[in-house]
């Protein structure tokens, strides 16, 4: 009797195991960037069970060190949705590597150019002839640095731009291997609390309200499971509202995922604006500037933006 029940139970579990995921769809494969406080909403949605509340099963399929790497994973078909910078996503789509759309904003602002604490550099123009680290070519930060330089009247080739992964930047700044870096929060905040660096300029002063990270969706996934995408966006909106309403609780989640102390994460969050509203004008600026840099070739930026930003899902959800 006991054995028969056990066998029956085992069979049931096995069949369920095979059938249930197919029926409910396999888990949504998502990705985010390592310790990027911009993407706090993805961590909040996981920790607070917002995905689960939507009936979604989510699997973290990748944690990346920079946006271009995450876009390569999209190109390889390894991801369904991901939190990623708007610039690398734009470049990947324009260069026909990945087919994704932005279905929600994640944050605006939230990066900074940091110089050594005792550095004599006081203005962006004084970066002439110096070595500045960026997290990667075609990242939001690469874009912001070049924008800041052009605003200061400096040609991009007047500054030595090198690629370093953000976790290595503070060490490189401390040992004098670089004169400055630009990175997403919490690295600028960490450099300050460690007393290694000082913010030269916050990215909101380079370009006010500049779009930064987006929630990207693979077009094939959107076509196959539009309802799941809608639920993901809903959870994202919920998580974003949660961060703005309960910053103290969000702070704790940020500390858990970045592994950094309360002071650093608090300072970092101050520099980030959490929002889910997509900006058409912001994306057009990205497209035009990236084209000017020679990273992409887009003839009709207006048409590209219309194809890249998917505002429909948000409109349906928020009624705006």
């Amino acid at each position, binding site marked *: 009797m006991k054995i028969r029940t056990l066998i029956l139970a085992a069979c049931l579990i096995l069949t369920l195991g095979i059938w249930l995921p197919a029926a409910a769809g396999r888990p949504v494969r998502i990705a985010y960037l390592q310790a990027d406080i911009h993407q706090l909403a993805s961590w909040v949605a996981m920790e607070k069970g917002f995905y689960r509340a939507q009936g979604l099963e989510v699997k973290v399929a990748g944690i990346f060190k920079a946006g271009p790497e995450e876009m390569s994973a999209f190109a390889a078909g390894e991801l369904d949705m991901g939190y990623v910078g708007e610039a690398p996503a734009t*470049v*990947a789509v324009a260069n026909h590597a990945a087919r994704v759309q932005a279905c929600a904003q994640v944050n605006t602002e939230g990066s900074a150019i940091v110089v050594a604490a005792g550095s004599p550099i006081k203005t962006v123009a004084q970066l002439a002839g110096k070595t500045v680290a960026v997290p990667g070519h075609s990242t939001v930060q690469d874009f912001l640095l070049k924008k800041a330089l052009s605003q200061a009247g400096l040609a991009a080739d007047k500054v030595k731009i090198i690629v370093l992964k953000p976790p290595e930047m503070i060490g490189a700044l401390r040992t004098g291997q670089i004169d400055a870096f630009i990175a997403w929060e919490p690295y600028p905040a960490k450099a300050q609390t460690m007393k290694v660096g000082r913010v030269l300029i916050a990215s909101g002063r380079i370009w006010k309200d500049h779009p930064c990270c987006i929630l990207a969706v693979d077009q094939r996934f959107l076509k196959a499971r539009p309802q799941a995408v809608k639920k993901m966006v809903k959870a994202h909106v919920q998580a974003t509202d949660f961060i703005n309403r309960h910053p103290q609780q969000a702070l704790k989640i940020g500390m858990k995922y970045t592994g950094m102390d309360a002071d650093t994460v608090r300072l970092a969050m101050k520099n980030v604006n959490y929002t889910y509203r997509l900006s058409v004008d912001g994306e057009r600026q990205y497209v035009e500037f990236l084209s000017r840099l020679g990273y992409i070739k887009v003839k009709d930026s207006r048409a590209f933006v219309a194809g890249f930003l998917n505002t429909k899902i948000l409109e349906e959800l928020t009624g705006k």
Partner: protein
Amino acid sequence: MTPRRYALPLAVVALWQGLSWAGLIPAYKLPSPLAIAQGLVDLVLVGMPPGHRLPSHLFYSLYRVAWGFFLAALLGVPLGLLMGWSRPLRQLVTPLVELVRPVPPLAWIPISILWFGIGIKSAAFIIFLGAFFPILLNTIAGVRSVNPTLPEAARTLGARERDIVLKVLLPGSVPSIFVGLRIGLGIGWMTLVAAEFTGVRSGYGLGYMIMTARDIQRADEIMAGMGVIGITGLLIDWGLRVLQRRLLPWK
């Protein structure tokens, strides 16, 4: 140089191009040979990142490899000769060599950056690690392959130890040393690209160029860069073989 030698590569390229045209190979996964050729043209004319052109990338990479390889040969050949010649020295040093040798040069990258910073020194160090051990081991093997009666005969004829090393053991092991140099340079060249992945100060280097092309999602330029690395490696090896034939006509 028979046409048959080129038949297979040409057939593969033609088939590849055909499949790409037919839409069976998606361009974002594997660009067609023609797209890669266009990527190569872009690398030369536009550069990656834009403004950083291919010849400079190639030059910086060769410069780094030259340094690393030169240091490896400078240290590896004399040490190999001494270790081949002296049994106590060999017994003393071999355990250390065998301990360090299996560590992949790339595993040294974080330490190398810590010790030497980002730049020519750390890149040269990584290449040195790749090139050193093949040179050392082949030199030792070369010395030990010299017919033991030769140094004995030299000794009975009144030769000094110094002369035995330089005039008997060295010439006798040159063919093997050359093998070591060729393998060492090959491994050094392979290591270089990965060493440049971790960041270079100058903004130039073939590995750095490929990483940048990856950041900007240009698979055609990645493949073109790989082609340049392969062909350069082939040319370097060919150069060493020509040199070997000149220096060792009897081989």
